[in-house]
């Protein structure tokens, strides 16, 4: 059903040697590879109908405008938005979250208000709230994690009160893989009148996400982690909320009227898209979503559960290896972070690189989480549609080699 051989043919980049070994790409959590169709969709734009969008009254520009707006519709449908007007193009998840912090946050938060987030957040869903708190006098509270790498929800229950204005949580941890019980958490937040922003950077690429079913208020995600190009991301927000928000950046394309005395803003979503957008990138992103639809998000999730099951099994048997995060593949995504004895994660990654295996080593932009774990860094392997059991086997072999070489 999930034909990885066929899938891998769409990613010729995987078919290369790295340091004399076949490339084993296990860093999709940082950025995924792109299928040929995505690359070609952008090439078509650049080679056949490259022009600025929205205002051009000539063929190239009209074609470009239609393709750009059509990509928006595809992506809006992909997360089941109720209208494409709720889908704002940004550079990445980080900008999406900053947009909410600046536009919604600065106008809605005041001293004494509370933002709840978690200890396991990526810096993108943490630092903007710290900054917002510093500017408004609001307070940030961090739901701690348990030994198993799950959220300690007793704290969440205890902290929820009308003072809470925003709950900003990841839908899938990029370090632990943890998938928190988002739906209940959203209901609880709404019960006290708080909005909920989901960091979907890891979830949207790897599992079905339906914003209407979830009932969240904002969802941020990045194209480059879901087979799309760099330079493009999205913020989805509920229309009634977005309509009330002031613009974030201002300039061309986001206005209705400008005079020397002041300006009127354009309607959604353009109010939030100032200047020439990332046109080729939006088109590529739309194509990526199209391809994901072909594969089927439920199938992708299933494929990754299977791969994660196998990987956990194998890795748990590696001498000295310790995995952080839930052990049940149903409760987690396919990003697996670990340490091995006291070998530094940089060195593990470097030895693996010598074997052609690409993994990430470091704090994965989650320093507070690593502080909590008492670590400065971990090594992380992460999977996507093109990964296969053999990749896991190679990883395990590479780890044995690293242990041999670097144990003191």
């Amino acid at each position, binding site marked *: 059903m999930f034909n990885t051989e066929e899938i891998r043919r769409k990613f010729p980049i995987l078919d290369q040697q790295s340091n004399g070994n076949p490339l084993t790409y296990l860093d999709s959590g940082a950025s995924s590879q792109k299928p040929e169709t995505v690359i070609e969709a952008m090439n078509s734009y650049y080679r056949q109908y490259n022009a600025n969008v*929205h*205002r*051009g*009254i000539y063929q190239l*520009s*009209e074609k470009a*405008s*239609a393709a750009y*707006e059509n990509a928006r*519709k595809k992506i809006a*449908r992909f997360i089941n938005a109720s*209208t*494409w*007007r709720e889908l704002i193009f940004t550079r990445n998840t980080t900008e999406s979250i900053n947009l909410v912090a600046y536009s919604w946050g600065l106008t809605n938060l005041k001293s004494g208000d509370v933002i709840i987030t978690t200890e396991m957040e990526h810096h993108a869903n943490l630092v903007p709230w710290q900054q917002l708190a510093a500017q408004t006098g609001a307070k940030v509270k961090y739901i701690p994690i348990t030994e198993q790498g799950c959220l300690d929800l007793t704290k969440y229950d205890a902290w929820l009160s009308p003072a809470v204005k925003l709950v900003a949580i990841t839908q899938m941890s990029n370090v632990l893989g943890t998938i928190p019980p988002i739906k209940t958490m959203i209901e609880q937040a709404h019960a006290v009148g708080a909005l909920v922003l989901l960091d979907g950077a890891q979830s949207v690429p790897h599992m079905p996400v339906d914003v209407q079913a979830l009932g969240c208020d904002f969802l941020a995600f990045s194209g480059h982690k879901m087979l799309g190009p760099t330079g493009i991301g999205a913020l989805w927000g509920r229309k009634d909320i977005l309509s009330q928000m002031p613009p974030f950046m201002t300039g061309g394309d986001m*206005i*209705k*009227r400008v005079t020397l005395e002041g300006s009127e803003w*354009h*309607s959604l979503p353009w109010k939030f898209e100032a200047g020439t957008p990332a046109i080729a990138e939006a088109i590529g992103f739309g194509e990526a979503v199209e391809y994901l639809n072909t594969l089927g998000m439920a199938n992708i999730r299933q494929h990754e559960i299977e791969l994660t099951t196998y990987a956990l099994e194998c890795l748990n048997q590696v001498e000295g290896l310790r995995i952080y995060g839930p052990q049940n593949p149903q409760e987690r995504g396919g990003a697996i972070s670990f340490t091995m004895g006291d070998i530094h994660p940089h060195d593990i990654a470097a030895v693996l690189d010598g074997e052609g295996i690409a993994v990430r080593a470091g704090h994965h932009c989650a320093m507070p989480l690593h502080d909590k774990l008492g670590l400065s860094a971990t090594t992380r392997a992460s999977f996507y549609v093109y990964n296969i059991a053999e990749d896991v086997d190679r990883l395990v072999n590479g780890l044995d080699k690293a242990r041999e070489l670097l144990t003191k």
Partner: protein
Amino acid sequence: MDELYRQNILEHYRNPHNMGTLENHTHSHKEHNPLCGDVVQIELLVDDQQRIDQVAFSGKGCAISQASTSMLTDMLIGKTVEEAKQINKEVILDELGIEIGPVRLKCALLSLKAVKMALYNLSEEEWDKEEDDW
């Protein structure tokens, strides 16, 4: 292009129908095209039976917006307000009889928007819904 400026459009553009103002109008609305700054002012005289007796328009605009406004005003006269509500994007595009890009669509629909705002105070929200495709 030759497609765009068909004879029927050029005729309405050169000799627009119902151009001017209506002293005794019952409804009116002025609408800006955010893309080019064009303006159309629509004035309607609706009688006690909720029937549109007279229509007039003024303002500046391109051939497409002038022609579509001229055609729309023709269509409106004699219709009830309820009947006028049925006029939508498709009706206008049919009447123009041309294929139209996304930018010029705003031009073609500017007066329809103005009429809807004038007649039954359509909100921007609702207009978006009429215009939006999925």
